[in-house]
């Protein structure tokens, strides 16, 4: 039994009610049921979670690192997109 025969799974854990599932890492497993069990054993040993999602890594579509410039750099020069150019009136609270 070789590790590489098994698909890779990405693991997402919700640490408590109301919070998002957060990516915590990946693991190998032959199917979804065992991926959840492996995730439980590898990533929640110290009470880190109350819910686990796993998804086969192959099903994730990601941006191409070679195109990161085109994807992300244009927004670096557009500081006006941050809401920092407004005068907040004195009477407004909780801003």
């Amino acid at each position, binding site marked *: *039994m070789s*590790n590489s025969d*098994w698909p890779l799974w990405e693991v997402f854990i919700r640490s408590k009610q109301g919070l998002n599932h957060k990516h915590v890492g990946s*693991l*190998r*497993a*032959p199917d979804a*049921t*065992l991926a959840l*069990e*492996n995730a*439980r*054993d*590898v990533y929640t*040993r110290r009470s880190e979670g109350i819910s686990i999602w796993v998804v086969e890594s192959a099903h994730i579509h990601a941006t191409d690192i070679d195109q990161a410039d085109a994807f992300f750099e244009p927004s670096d020069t557009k500081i006006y997109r941050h809401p920092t150019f407004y005068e907040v009136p004195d009477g407004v609270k909780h801003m």
Partner: protein
Amino acid sequence: MQQDSLFEYVMRLSDDSLILGQRLGEWCGHGPILEEDIAITNIALDLIGQSISLYDFAAELEAKGRNHDQLAYLRYENEYKNVLLVEQPNGDFAMTMLRQFFFDAFRLPLYEALMQSRVAQLAAIAAKSVKETRYHLKHSSEWVIRLGDGTEESHMRAQAAIDHLWRYTNELFYENAHDQRLQESGAVPLMSDIKEKWQKTVHEVLQEATLQLPSNNWKFDGGREGRHSEHMGYILSDLQYMQRAYPNMEW
């Protein structure tokens, strides 16, 4: 209900957990994959944790001033009352998983029944351990199904493990005069009830796994009376080395 019967009963539970935990611990660093290595050692630690609670309770019942370390590490082989099943060597992964499955399928209904025990402390330990055990059974069942209904090779190995281990399964349901005394007072369940549930689980899982029960019905026993297989001495020499070499050490 006599204290000595309850002591005997609790020591059986505890020794089963300790010795199986020790066996599973041998996989540490040797698991077939990293994820399963962690899964097996988690189960080992659960079992050893259960044995600590049980030895603590046994020590109280005995009231001779021994603590859980002395009960776990400083007895002679014939004083251990674990079943022969849990001391059998790990063998291949299929052998380890089938041994685990036969044990978990027994332990779960036993703990579920012990939660109703008239002995409050025993009921409390059972209630605490039952969740862990439910997960152990789920994990070992999943693997038995995948090995049995997997490849030709995994099916062959899983079937070989069943054919070998089957002879040790009947001893799980051992009873003697201690049990009868405890059953009469509502402290522990009838083993015949546990056996019925065990058989149901075993039949369901093996059927789904396309595995067969062996036609032979050899029955080995002795562990519950302190007569162990040749493997036990080697386990104890590993297990007891530190306490024997450095008496009363703690860490």
